[in-house]
């Protein structure tokens, strides 16, 4: 491993029932994705507060991805529908403020989609790495 190579820091919020299980399946199948991705388990994607996302960026994350069950498959019937609205509006707002839109993403990953999970994380990590360090939504105090 090169010492000074820039590695992005990616926070992935995964719902317990689909996406977290999808990530587990990716593990079971030994599907690689970058270690830059760190998963936080939430019961449902609708538990993810926009404040958590901003907090992650403040603390140094370069990308934040939220993963939930596919529409219609939510363990709690409707949680991901609320997530979809919240994130659509939040992401649009961040873009409006001039934050790179590629730094945030919402994906539906089912418990059976280990391959999709790994592919999504590979793609997202690559996209974020190409953007480089998050400069527009950073808090320098946290990078000392």
């Amino acid at each position, binding site marked *: 491993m090169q010492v000074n190579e820039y590695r992005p820091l990616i926070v992935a919020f995964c719902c317990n029932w689909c996406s977290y299980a999808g990530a587990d399946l990716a593990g079971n199948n030994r599907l690689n994705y970058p270690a830059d991705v760190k998963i936080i388990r939430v019961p449902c994607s609708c538990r993810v507060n926009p404040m958590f996302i901003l*907090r992650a960026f403040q603390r140094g994350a370069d990308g934040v991805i939220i993963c939930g069950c596919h529409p219609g498959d939510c363990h709690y019937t409707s949680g991901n529908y609320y997530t979809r609205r919240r994130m659509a509006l939040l992401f649009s707002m961040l873009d409006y403020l001039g934050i790179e839109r590629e730094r945030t993403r919402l994906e539906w990953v089912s418990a059976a989609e280990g391959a999709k999970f790994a592919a999504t994380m590979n793609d997202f990590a690559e996209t974020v790495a190409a953007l480089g360090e998050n400069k527009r939504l950073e808090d320098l105090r946290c990078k000392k």
Partner: protein
Amino acid sequence: MQRIGVFVCWCGTNIAGTVDVAAVSEALKSEPGVVFSTNYQYMCSQAGQDIIKDAVKEHNLTGIVVCSCSPRMHEATFRKTAAAAGLNPYMVEIANIREQCSWVHKDMLTGTEKAIILGKAAVAKVNLNTPLTPGESPVTKRALVIGGGIAGIQTALDIADAGFPVDIVEKNPTIGGKMAQLDKTFPTLDCAACILTPKMVDVAQHENIRIFSYSEVEEIGGFVGNFDVKIKKKARFVKEDICTGCGACVEKCPMKKIPNEFNLGMDNRRAVYIPFAQAVPKVATIDPSACNMLKSGKCGICSKVCTAGAIDYKQKDELIEEKYGAIVVATGFNPISMDKFDEFAYNQSRDVITSLEFERLTNAAGPTQGKLLRPSDLEHPHTIVFVQCVGSRCDACAEKGKEYCSKICCMYTAKHAMLVRDKYPDTEVYVFYIDVRTPGKNFDEFYRRAVEEYGVRYIKGMVGKITPEGDKLKVQASDLLADKQLHIDADLVVLAAAIEPDKTARPLATMLTASMDTNDFFTEAHPKLRPVESPTAGVFLSGTCQGPKDIPETVSQASAAAAKVIGLLVKDKLTGNPCIASPNELMCNGCSSCERVCPYGAITYIDKEFPQPDRTVAVRRVAQVNPAVCQGCGACTVACMSGAMDLRGFMSSQIIAEVDAICK
């Protein structure tokens, strides 16, 4: 400050192969709150669990972090271990360093680095964990079934047979529902009454079943295991317990021209009536909108002829309050109104009828005593056109009809066509269809018999217009396969009207706080895995209130719902999931945002007094979460602007601590 123990599992070489487990346990030692850290070959083994138990005692641990496989694998195991060691089981957090670390990263350095970070996040979370105790609530061992059709009947019988009391609420004077109106049933062609009425009798005679007929649910409160329901028993002006169902009153009633609902208005009944011979309960009902005695106080004949003295003109609606542990919705369906389908001339010609009307026309107890006669002139029809998908599978943009497939029409139309050809071989039968859908045991065989053995003429194409002309119905249609326009002079046209949920379902769903889809079908808790449960705990779905179904499907679902109810009622108390939403009343605005996103109706409001800064007391509306109903999704926590709503086990502060630890 917590006293946290960290236990890093090797999982043989599954973890240890790519993660330096010793380095992980060493690194986590210096995390705030950690007082003990170790690693072991198989943490989930008895020996591994003993290490945890011993450490809890030796180091007075208050929290545990296990760095191991996915929490979906062994979280329950380690929670039990913690409980066995005297700790609250919810003081355990798992860092998933196998599925999400060692198995997906190949490099030891990378794997170890990430495992440490995941461990730190788990430690950060445990630092904020609080002991959680699941709430308990008692279960009222009685079920309520709303709707007395075949779905409700089957559900009630199954629950009652298991030994639990069941009440059926039926809005009509008799149970039986739509199935009682049917003639034969596909694909076996046994008569509906022959198989339904014995079940109705079983219901009437079952010691565990009470029937509230001619009754409606007025109000529902409470929650799973503890519903409080108010049932309005409408006055039928006949004492149910005294009436013998002899029918003397019906015979003498002078008001003879009341459209008979049971025969869909194709003949008449009296102001006092028994819907049909096998009605359960078999008691008379006086229609207050038609009875002279009730309207003007003049008549009273029925009272005079009733030898039992069952007539009671002064009877009032009665309100019954009862407690239930579970509620089954079996509100059924109705054919949609044909008012918007002027092209089929339903309102212009009496000889254009719906399939349900056709059932009555062919039924021996129907208006024509089972002889197939056209309603207009009581002549035998020689050409019959069946039109499928009337109002089903419509364009979303069209302002009439439904987008969905009504599912049962293909089969009953095949049945009707076949029966006509069987009884009246001189009759030409045309069926216009978009597709013929026959999945089901013996269904396609049945349809093929109609075509191949009975010579029913199936034509792929839609009927464009029906024009009554003299005693004929001019049917204009297209044959898509032959690519030509057809003109048929029909004597009778039968429309396979789409079915829709009963109108009472929507207000009921509101009372139940159960969710519905845009078509007013009840939503199931999970479309695949929990098809007979509503997302609202303790509310179950039986029959077509959940979606179009034929009889066998309805009955299977009815029994499935009964099984779920029995599973609930056998419990003496319900133990909840302790990871549920909990509002901070001091911060709650009472704005209802949380209530609106809750899929379970777990949130209610109370007005509560709060001391104000100016030393006065003000009443404020604040949210309450019912721990027996909340499932812990957390939708409310984000809907809540002030952050008054938090989720136990996944508190905002805990998630933020994890974010912070990961991003350090």
